């Protein structure tokens, strides 16, 4: 389904979607972040990259699996938390972030289906916005199989035209969102279509950052496990969790029982994000740590994204959003690291 929505009518559309929980980018003092949108009229779609991707909504950093407590007669009672069942629409999603969701889907849809993930994912509708101009100086989606107007993962993709949005729906869920406010949409004319296509092709030319010959990197990585490159490139790494926590594709998690009280016993089983850059990520209870230093942790980050994931899922586990580059406090640049891998030994 393809429609035209005037910019002025955007809040009216959102008002019609009041049965959904709506998230949209919200401008803060120094950044943008996804937040539940209370007032439809406050919607703005001129956002730069949000600090976190919509991963934080679909795969939240903290999730309670169940609560437990010791009841009378020393019996353990377990109870799942009341489910947050309302369908969710995330507005203004950038194509790289939607690609991130498709990567997460692959991981959580493997041999073991992650029910917690899919419960949220199935009730999430992604309404995207094509990037007519790159929302970050470090955007490099074209180099990793994406594009500023990629439709992957979207129910709807909107492209900004002069006074309107070109709205394309690719799923039943998307069609439903449009039909809920059917009368405010109009049918696109031939020149609207042309404008959209021009915006799309122009947007590709505006990307500043690229990695040439990235396809040569995965096979090369297979022989670089013991390369001194990892030590050289990780010298300034402080082993914080910024690059992985902000990454739209990183999905590692930990499960802990968090006790509220020891006697009588009560608490929660909680899933939280975990992070391969933390020294304790691979620490064994024996005291042995198979990834004992910065070099082995940086290697893991690159290997997972550009070697193991490629082998397992035939895609880079990177969508070119540029967050890890922009936010690294010591300036480690994943593009530079990949270029060094590519040129290593040449």
């Amino acid at each position, binding site marked *: 389904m393809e429609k035209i929505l005037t910019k002025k009518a955007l809040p009216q559309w959102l008002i019609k979607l009041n049965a959904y929980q709506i998230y949209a980018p919200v401008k803060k003092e120094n950044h943008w972040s996804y937040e539940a949108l209370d007032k439809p009229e406050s919607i703005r779609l001129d956002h730069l990259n949000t600090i976190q991707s919509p991963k934080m909504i679909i795969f939240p*950093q903290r999730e309670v699996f169940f609560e437990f407590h010791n009841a009378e007669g020393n019996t353990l009672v377990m109870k799942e938390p009341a489910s947050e069942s309302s369908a969710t629409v995330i507005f203004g999603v950038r194509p790289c972030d939607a690609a991130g969701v498709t990567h997460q889907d692959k991981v959580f849809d493997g041999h073991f289906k992650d029910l917690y993930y899919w419960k949220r994912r199935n009730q999430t509708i992604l309404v995207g916005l094509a990037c007519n101009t790159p929302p970050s*100086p470090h955007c490099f989606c074209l180099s990793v199989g994406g594009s500023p107007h990629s439709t992957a993962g979207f129910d709807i993709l909107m492209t900004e035209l002069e006074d309107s949005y070109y709205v394309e729906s690719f799923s039943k869920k998307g069609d439903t969102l449009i039909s809920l406010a059917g009368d405010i949409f109009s049918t696109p004319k031939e020149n609207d279509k042309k404008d959209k296509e021009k915006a799309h092709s122009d947007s590709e030319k505006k990307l500043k950052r690229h990695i040439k010959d990235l396809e040569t990197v995965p096979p090369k990585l297979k022989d670089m496990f013991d390369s001194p490159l990892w030590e050289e490139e990780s*010298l300034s790494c402080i082993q914080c969790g910024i690059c992985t926590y902000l990454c739209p594709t990183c999905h590692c998690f*930990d499960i802990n029982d968090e006790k509220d009280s020891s006697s009588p016993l009560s608490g929660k089983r909680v899933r939280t994000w975990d992070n391969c850059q933390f020294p304790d990520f691979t620490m064994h209870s024996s005291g042995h740590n198979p990834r004992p230093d910065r070099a082995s942790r940086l290697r893991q980050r690159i290997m997972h994204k550009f070697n193991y994931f490629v082998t397992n899922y035939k895609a880079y586990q990177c969508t070119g959003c540029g967050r890890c580059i922009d936010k690294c406090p010591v300036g480690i640049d994943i*593009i530079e690291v990949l270029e060094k891998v590519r040129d290593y030994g040449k």
Partner: protein
Amino acid sequence: MVALEDLKQEAKNVLEGGTVKYIIGYKKPAVGFMAVPAFFHKPEDLDALVWDPTCVHNLVLFLKDEKKKKLGQKEPDERPVGIVVKGCDSRAVNVLLQENYIDRENVYILGVSCGKTGMVDLKKVRKYFKGKIISQIDFNENESFTVTTTEGKVEVPAADIFAVRCTECITASPVIHDVLLGGDSVRTPENPFGSLEEMESKSQGQKWDFWQEQLTKCIRCYACRSICPMCYCDECVVDTINFAVYPDTPAEEKAQKIKWVEKSPTTSENFIYHMVRAIHLAGRCVDCAECERACPMDIPLRFLNKKLEKESKKLFDYDVGYDTEIPSLISSFRDEDPEDFIR
């Protein structure tokens, strides 16, 4: 003002002569204008060394890695590490010396003076130059910076893009050094704790609401801890496991490990984490404000540390990082301490 060529020459001299094993300094990134930490092992690499108002990092942080690396080596190279150090950073070296974490002969300090200005705040720069592409920022002799964009060079008053900590700095040149470039720079800011006043004037309830909102944002990436030169404990209360575990550590001992902070980034756990961090830096923090700069979530972390610096000054007349001979604030007491509960 530091002449970059002089700094390069000094660095080359000690690296070529073998006085130092390598030099920790700054270089330009592949893309962008903010300098990044760099490790120079060969004299010819030093052509890439830079010194400008974007050299925000406190490189003293990397002395922690150096120490850990040396501990793991059978026959470590005992020569010092050369390090480029600003005024605030130099006080961090002093704190590490005072706490016997490093020895004076472990470091060769290439001190650089910030002159009349200091470091830029990237967030302010981005706001000021909205959308423009910046290639270079330079110091000037007066209280301004020269910013080069694709549209040309402009002089910007320091106050407009300056890091707040630099406006409250009293040590714009290093207090400890082997070589000092750019000369001494003495500063007497009118109100060295001025940035605290707005918060201090709030009611308890307003403060609570403010910090509740701020700390709820925390994603516990621990960048604030990891970038801090003072956070060097082998084991941190927020780590989920005990790093002091060996193959012969009995299971009971492992099981008895106390979990101080849960991994969940909930408001209450985040409060505990940030309070522990702040308290442990009382009398140790040199106000390099790297924690706040590193925070991806824009939490105003510097406030917590600056407030404790003020308290240390007010209650104990303690200044951080000037005297390596005095005992550190949190591991000592004096008879003239105003609080009498400890005696």
